[in-house]
């Protein structure tokens, strides 16, 4: 591998020259007729998006068929096919399953089968909404929405916090001035006592009217996007039961996803260009020029980073978001996507492989970004995905720097790791060699390790593998959620333990395979360094996560807290066990060694969880 020591200015010039070449290459792909064709298609896509955005998007169009009597309600929801029918014919068609439900001014008739029952449920929801809108316009707000509920929060376990600093229930209920009611003897009773003085409601108007009006206008969809709150209900919020809607931030998640789709397209070009130059050996020719692999990678990537930033700014301006916030949220997402595509391009040889791994990457990235964001406002676990931050940005909610780091730090780290590994594996033999996937991975790890600083390399490898391990474990939660609860937890445990053992031992295993490491002492010291690196990374992540994620059984299972010595011991024992077994029986038995190490690791985790749960 070439090591060209250059002044920074030359390095920058090299990167810019390669970028310019990449831009020219990209532009030459779309000239003349093909550019026109693409522009027309892009314009069409934009037009369709615009039209769909401005009309009620309904997936279940015409799903149910409703028979309505001549004096029945008018149904305008496109989920319902409406047939005007008299009662007799309605009953007959209902029986023949030609309609799912029949409705007149007083009541609705349905069958007992599933389809008819679901239709009734959907119609009930629609009519209730219609009725609420009707009474809101026909009656005074105090008559139509007489019940208002103020939300308050109280720490459930007093032992956890200083009780003096906490509000008491009396403070919350505004009953602090009330005379004390037999504090020691009163037992909860099922019987009414009426002993607590209750403030009488004021007839006519109330201070809560404004809150009700706000909710009513949200309910009727007058405020554009559906309501989303950082919390389902914040302290002192006023809720009206019939207007309370579940906080699905679907619209915001879709908006946030609008950024990801064009970035994915841009990345496909990046990987395509890389693959093409790899297969026609232009990259190898470039290597003989006075440029470093790092400059080649960065130079080729730079135009696509530029295009993606333009996309982020354009989408933000189009959706009227805050560009200064959108950039720090989506730049790590973009770098993460580009780093995955870089690895795909460097590892695979054929276009078909590349297409399928790209599609797989798209599915994985989509799941990783979108699934947690769906829980925005419900669970703090949603901060795993930067899309949650975007959702909050579009709601005008603030987020903390720690939340920002939890969402984006793994993405930045994966990017830097990919750049580093990319630079190390950038040689003719690796780029052009046909090998099975596991051999390619093993070779990449071997090339990433600096043979002059083995201990430091193994330590850093374990440390930097934490973000990908974290992401893989989160994906395992997604997959395991298909199973019922005890099995799901077991599956998460098994998958996370195996992932961790692979991360810790893979570096040493490749050194063993290439006979760089032989002695028992070397294996043990390297295992210790790997365990130490992994533990430090794990604890750093835990420290960050604890700030944000308050409670989750899954995260407890994966990132178990406890003393520092015990987990270090465990990591050391399992890693050295895997590596010693591999050294003794050969690399062929590495999977068996991994299973053995994982069993010990798993038993340790079970012990810790048993102590926690």
């Amino acid at each position, binding site marked *: 591998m070439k090591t060209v020591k250059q002044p920074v200015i030359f390095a920058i010039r090299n990167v810019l020259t390669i970028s310019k070449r990449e831009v020219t290459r990209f532009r030459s792909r779309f000239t003349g007729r093909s550019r026109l064709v693409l522009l027309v298609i892009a314009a069409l896509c934009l037009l369709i998006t615009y039209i769909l955005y401005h009309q009620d998007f309904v997936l279940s169009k015409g799903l149910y068929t409703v028979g309505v009597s001549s004096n029945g309600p008018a149904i305008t929801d496109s989920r319902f096919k409406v047939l005007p029918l008299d009662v007799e014919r309605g009953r007959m068609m209902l029986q023949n399953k030609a309609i799912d439900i029949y409705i007149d001014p007083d009541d609705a008739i349905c069958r007992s089968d599933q389809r008819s029952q679901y239709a*009734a449920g959907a119609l009930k929801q629609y009519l209730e909404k219609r009725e609420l809108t009707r009474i809101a316009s026909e*009656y005074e707000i105090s008559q139509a929405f*007489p019940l208002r509920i103020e939300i308050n929060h109280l720490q459930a376990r007093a032992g956890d916090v200083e009780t003096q600093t906490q509000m008491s229930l009396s403070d919350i209920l505004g009953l602090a001035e009330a005379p004390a009611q037999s504090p020691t003897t009163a037992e909860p009773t099922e019987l009414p006592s009426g002993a607590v003085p209750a403030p009488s409601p004021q007839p006519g108007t109330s201070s809560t009217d404004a809150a009700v009006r706000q909710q009513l206008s949200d309910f009727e969809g007058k405020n554009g996007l559906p309501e989303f709150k950082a919390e389902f209900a914040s302290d002192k919020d006023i809720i009206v039961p019939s207007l309370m809607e579940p906080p699905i931030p679907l619209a915001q998640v879709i908006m946030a996803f609008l950024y990801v789709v064009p970035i994915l397209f841009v990345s496909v070009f990046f990987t395509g260009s890389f693959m093409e130059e790899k297969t026609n050996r232009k990259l190898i020719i470039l290597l003989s020029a006075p440029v470093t692999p790092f400059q080649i990678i960065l130079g080729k990537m730079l135009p696509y980073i530029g295009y993606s930033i333009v996309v982020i700014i354009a989408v933000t301006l189009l959706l009227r978001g805050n560009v200064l916030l959108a950039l720090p949220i989506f730049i790590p997402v973009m770098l993460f996507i580009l780093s995955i595509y870089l690895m795909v391009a460097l590892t695979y040889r054929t276009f078909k492989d590349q297409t399928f791994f790209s599609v797989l990457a798209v599915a994985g990235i989509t799941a990783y970004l979108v699934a947690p964001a769906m829980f925005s406002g419900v669970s703090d676990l949603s901060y795993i995905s930067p899309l949650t931050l975007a959702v909050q940005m579009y709601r005008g909610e603030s987020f903390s720097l720690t939340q920002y780091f939890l969402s984006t730090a793994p993405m930045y780290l994966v990017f830097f790791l990919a750049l580093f590994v990319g630079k190390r594996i950038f040689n003719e033999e690796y780029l052009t060699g046909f090998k099975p996937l596991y051999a390619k991975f093993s070779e990449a790890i071997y090339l990433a390790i600096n043979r002059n600083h083995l201990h430091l390399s193994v330590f850093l490898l374990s440390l930097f593998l934490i973000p990908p391990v974290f992401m893989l474990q989160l994906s395992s939660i997604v997959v395991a959620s298909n199973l019922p609860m005890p099995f799901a937890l077991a599956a998460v445990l098994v998958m996370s333990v195996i992932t961790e053992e692979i991360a810790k031992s893979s570096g040493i295993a490749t050194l063993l395979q290439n006979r760089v490491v032989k002695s028992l002492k070397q294996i043990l010291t390297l295992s210790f360094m790997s365990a130490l690196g992994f533990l430090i990374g794990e604890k750093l992540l835990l420290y960050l996560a604890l700030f944000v994620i308050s409670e989750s059984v899954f995260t407890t299972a994966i990132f178990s807290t406890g003393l520092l010595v015990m987990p270090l011991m465990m990591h050391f024992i399992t890693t050295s066990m895997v590596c010693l077994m591999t050294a003794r029986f050969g690399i062929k038995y590495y999977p068996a060694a991994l299973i053995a190490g994982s069993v010990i690791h798993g038993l340790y985790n079970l012990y810790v969880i048993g102590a926690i749960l």
Partner: protein
Amino acid sequence: MNGFLVLLTRELRQITKEKTIMLAIIIQFFLASFSSVLLIGIMSFYDPESIGETTRIPIDVGIVGDTNSPLLGFLKEKNLRVLSFSDVGNAEEAFRSGHIDTVIFIPESNGGIVDMKLVLPELDALETVILMVLQEPLEKYENYLREANGVELYYKDLDGRPHATYEFLYSLIVPMLMLFPAFIAGSMVVDAVAEEVETKTLDTLRSAPVSLNAVFASKILAGVITCALQCIMWAVLLRLNSLFIQNIGFVLLLSIIIAASISFGAAIIALYFKDRERAQFTYSMVLIAAAGLSYFIDPSPFNLITRLATGDYYTSGYQVALYVIPLLILSVPFFTMSKKLLAAKS
């Protein structure tokens, strides 16, 4: 015909060799997992009705204030344990020690507006569940107060099952699973056709006793067969998960027709651009545009699968048959372009 079969077997063998099917299955497994996370997460947390109907979450409600309120009856109807407290201190102690999950303060009502207070624990997930479980009894109480104020609400006693999950499954998941293989088939056809054109292997193939049309058609058919196999697999998997697809024959037929149409479209794009990179990009863009445009058709392929799968009385093979028209239309430019390519080569 024999030559065509040889080509088709070659294509299919290549697909299996390149682990395409395995990958497609993994991708779709991800999609299915993803949707089940959404199902478990969103549906159980968000679908207020299903949470009360399908789950038995023991929630203990502490009442402070007007313990004669009809709300207590509505809460008990929902099978919630209701404890009345005459003393706020005791209620607080019960809440802090975890004996009750929430406290409701009900002021004495003389008609007019009732301003209640609800005390919730500071735990995101539990808070959501409590609010969702309490919604129905609170709504009943709200209607009771409305009636007392002389406001009449129609259709409030309609029965019916929570429909959100049903609509989600049949309007999104089933069509997505049935059409995703078609999108992959198209992508595969772009790769296969562009590869032949780019690597100039067509000249070699022309020396074989098969026409160029047969060469490309075999690639399209291979993609369509893979798509059909995946759809059948999904139908079986969904059935194992107690999700029944009605009119399964028509649903499969529609998926195959759509896969064939998409594949013809993909082949046209690949033949036009003659290189993989541009063809793949254009294919993706066209696919997005076509999916968007299809929303304005009644029924769109997505919607038609929904209606067939739910056993809609007014949907039948007739609508499916109509989708043969775009397939035939797309096949014309495909065969023309393929012929042109052959002429250019000669």
